[in-house]
């Protein structure tokens, strides 16, 4: 070590030597720490990343389940739609374009409009090199000729996609629903559902509620993205893909509804001439919904994008700006004052509480004085008992009844029949309606309960509201002796090959405690409404149609006083026209409720609609019976 002493600052270096070693150790130590992080702590993350680099996944599309009515008619299915795409930069305007116009059979105006769109795209710096959608939903003949002459059309391609189709158009649209593009919210909230941007999802109605059944599960096929040339693809697949390299897509479940499309068509026909309203027909023995119609409606084909996204946007703009709210499902999503259709329930309350005797008469002189107020009747009925009061819809009688009954008793009977509570149909937002109680009024009017509220409640006015389906089910209970059913829309779920996966039996909500004698009196009065000469439905009856029920004319606005001529009143102030009933009168099968929004008098306007529907129901029953006799083995379903 003597040599070191020659160096002037060798000792300096020996001191620093340790520091330099420490520096080296720190630097490599940092490397080791980082390696530990990458290779030990987070190895799984990078492992997955590396796998994703080499393994691709191709999605295999599934088919959405078909929706059918109770007789196998297809209500919602899938069909291929052919769209025309062009790469604007690659399309020759002088040579290819005229040929395209000719083959696609574009009208002059269409051609001009499309050409304008194309010219705009051609100028766009980025978009001119990308495939752009030019024409939507080409018909099959056009597709065929475009394919035949594909060589003459450089830059043009026809691609198919699957769109939802609803053969019945607007019929039953509110219950069926439509398809929309999945939005960011759904993507974020249901990561487990496997949605991707651009997927379509059921928007309302059955399509939405039964989405998870209808959708099916898409499959995938994994593949090696890039490959080292040294090895065979099979070996690489064996090594890197493992067992789960392929999952076949599982088609969605088919759904059979309780609806009878022939009856829905009948309801639609019967409602022609009316601007807005709703019809519900329910099987009183099961609670199954046989027909539901809400007017005005919308075309789910357009809403689902069969005519392109532009059309969807336009359609919804017009729906939302329309004062008639065509997207509103009037069968469940809106509540209306029931008017006189509530009187049978008031009568049942009075009989149960023994506050009127059936034979007791009230003298109707066109109104009823109560406190400082005068309550008007629809006419002058003179001496009427309970039966006559129901048949002629005498308000005065029910005001007298209302002056004796407690409002909470009315509300209690109403609640037994399902008013003020959601029916639980499960599709579309349901309006609960309201059965006002004393407590409710106390809250609402700061303690000042007045007897007049009970008088109005007894005739189904005031604060009482119901939705159409609630009323139908309540009338079904009146008809079947007091069994309140859960409404049923979905009859069964099936696999694509027709095997029934799940069959839904009717569900009884409750058996209503009733005195059968009281009920018989009310039923007899409802028969009288149609059959008796002074009955409110008598004038609009159709001979041979066996129906019982109750008319209603629900006042909407004090600006349309009772008895005034409705044609003088502004549309949105006019009375709602109701008819609620059942058929046949002996061992009833169906309950029918017709609501015509701002339709004026129930007897004049709603009864004919109900009559026609019941007539068609009977006709359909006869025809089907005859057909079944001729060919016992009826094919259950037809295919799209």
């Amino acid at each position, binding site marked *: 070590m003597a040599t070191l002493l020659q160096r002037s600052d060798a000792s300096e270096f020996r001191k620093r030597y340790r520091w330099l070693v420490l520096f080296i150790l720190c630097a490599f130590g*940092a490397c080791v720490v980082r390696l530990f992080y990458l290779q030990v702590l987070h190895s799984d993350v990078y492992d997955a990343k590396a796998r994703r680099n080499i393994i691709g996944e191709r999605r295999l599309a599934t088919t959405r389940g078909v929706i059918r009515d109770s007789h196998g008619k297809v209500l919602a299915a899938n069909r291929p739609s052919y769209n025309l795409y062009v790469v604007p930069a690659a399309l020759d305007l002088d040579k290819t374009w005229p040929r395209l116009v000719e083959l696609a059979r574009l009208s002059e105006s269409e051609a001009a409009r499309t050409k304008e769109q194309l010219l705009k795209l051609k100028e766009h710096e980025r978009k001119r090199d990308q495939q752009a959608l030019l024409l939507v939903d080409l018909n099959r003949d056009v597709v065929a000729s475009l394919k035949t002459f594909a060589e003459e059309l450089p830059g043009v391609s026809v691609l198919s996609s699957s769109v939802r189709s609803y053969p019945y158009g607007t019929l039953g649209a509110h219950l069926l629903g439509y398809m929309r593009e999945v939005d960011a919210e759904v993507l974020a909230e249901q990561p487990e559902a496997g949605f991707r941007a651009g997927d379509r999802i059921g928007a309302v109605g059955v399509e939405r509620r039964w989405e998870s059944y209808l959708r099916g599960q898409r499959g995938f096929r994994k593949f090696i993205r890039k490959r080292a040339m040294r090895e065979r693809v099979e070996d690489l697949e064996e090594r890197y893909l493992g067992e789960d390299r392929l999952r076949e897509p599982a088609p969605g479940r088919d759904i059979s509804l309780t609806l009878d499309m022939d009856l829905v068509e009948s309801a639609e026909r019967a409602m022609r001439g009316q601007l807005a309203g709703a019809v519900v027909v329910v099987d009183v023995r099961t609670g199954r919904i046989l027909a539901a119609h809400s007017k005005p409606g919308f075309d789910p084909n357009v809403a689902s994008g069969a005519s392109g996204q532009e059309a969807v946007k336009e359609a919804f703009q017009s729906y939302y700006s329309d004062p008639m709210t065509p997207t509103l499902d009037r069968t469940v999503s809106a509540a209306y004052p029931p008017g006189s259709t509530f009187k049978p329930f008031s009568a049942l309350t009075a009989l149960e509480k023994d506050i009127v005797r059936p034979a007791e008469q009230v003298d109707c002189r066109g109104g009823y004085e109560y406190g400082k107020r005068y309550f008007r009747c629809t006419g002058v009925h003179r001496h009427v008992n309970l039966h006559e009061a129901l048949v002629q819809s005498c308000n005065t009688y029910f005001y007298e009844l209302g002056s004796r009954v407690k409002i909470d008793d009315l509300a209690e009977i109403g609640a037994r029949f399902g008013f003020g509570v959601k029916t639980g149909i499960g599709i579309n937002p349901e309006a609960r309606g309201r059965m006002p109680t004393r407590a409710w009024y106390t809250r609402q009017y700061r303690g000042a309960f007045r007897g007049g509220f009970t008088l109005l409640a007894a005739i189904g006015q005031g604060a009482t509201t119901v939705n159409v389906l609630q009323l139908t089910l309540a009338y079904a209970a009146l008809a079947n002796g007091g069994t309140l059913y859960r409404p049923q829309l979905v009859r069964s779920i099936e696999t694509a090959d027709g095997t029934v996966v799940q069959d839904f039996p009717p569900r009884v909500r409750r058996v209503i405690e009733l005195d059968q004698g009281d009920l018989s009196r009310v039923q007899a009065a409802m028969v009288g409404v149609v059959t008796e000469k002074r009955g409110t439905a008598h004038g609009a009856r159709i001979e041979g149609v066996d129906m019982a029920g109750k008319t209603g004319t629900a006042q909407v606005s004090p600006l349309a006083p009772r008895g005034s001529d409705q044609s003088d009143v502004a549309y949105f102030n006019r009375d709602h026209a109701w008819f609620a009933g059942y058929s046949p009168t002996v061992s009833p099968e169906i309950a029918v409720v017709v609501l015509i929004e701002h339709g004026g008098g129930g007897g004049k306007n709603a009864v004919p609609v109900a009559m026609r529907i019941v007539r068609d129901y009977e006709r359909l029953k006869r025809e089907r019976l005859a057909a079944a006799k001729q060919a016992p083995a009826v094919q259950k379903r037809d295919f799209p």
Partner: protein
Amino acid sequence: MARSTKSFRSGPEVDMPLLITVVAIASIGIINLYSATSAYVDATQRSALADVYVTQIYWFVIGLLLAMLTAVIDYRHFERLAPILYFGGLISLGLVFVLATDVRGSARWIQLGSFSYQPSEFMKPLVVLMVARHIQNDTKTEARSFFDLIVPIGIAAVPAALVMLQPDLGTSLIYLTSTAAMLSITRIRTATLAWMAGGFVVSTILMWNFGLKAYQRGRVTSFLNPEKDATGTAWHAIQSQTAIGNGGLFGEGFMQGTQNQFGFLPDQHSDFPFSVFAEEFGFVGCLVLIGLYCFLSIWSLHIASQAKDRFGAALAVGTGGIIFFQAFFNMGMSMGILPVVGITLPLFSYGGSSLVTMLISLGLLMSVSMRR
């Protein structure tokens, strides 16, 4: 001194730990190279790479012979030769601008007959020799001021500037860092060190704004924000880290690294051989390799501390500095703790010039070690 009596009997004694470490690293490097380039066996595009490992073996043998030759010669002869070699190196660096073949935007190679060489690589030991010579002749005993350091820094800065123009940021960094390492054996005033630290910051800012090419700036910015630019430079860094992480504790196995075999690593034979190694041999393999580099770096400091004279000590520290900084920079960028700079992994990366130069430098180190 037992050591010197022993060497008197059997001539200068070979530094076995040094030799074994060097041969070990180079051998692992060649094996790794075989795997790194095997992905291209049939791919027409880069089939030229398919048997570069054989070429690398040739270079290794040639380099080893040259290293032995260097080791046999007493390193003190190089003190006299240093100026001639250094200026020769500078001239060939200048020639690059006249003769160089352009490879991906930077001109680094000179074609000599059938093979090309990279003057900037050969310049590394020449800078070390020249600075060592300066330190040997600088007999000042008191601490050095900034003016005393102008000459050694200049010796490194001139070739560094030339190389920067090629452009090759990595190599010029090595000239400067290894010179800095060598200056650590001399005494420097604390104030001067502080000034220089300040100067470093200022020059970094100036370099950033005026000296660096856009792509070089891009490498640093994408290092700082890899998500911002996941397709460009950052993509390389991300794929490299993915490869390393994919290796896990014990590695995917030789020739089994998918990041490597499927071609997700850019320049895996020259710039990212460590990622290939880390993917196939895992954390355990990496510990061994880092251990070898760590030993080599510290061992050269050890040799320096025992060297007979200041020239030898400086030479050993400089050589160790080259190895340490290159290894640290290369591995650091592979694993994402440093920005991506084109610095090769010494003895490990493919490249004749780099391998032969490194072996000759190690021959010098051996020469110092054998004569301590």
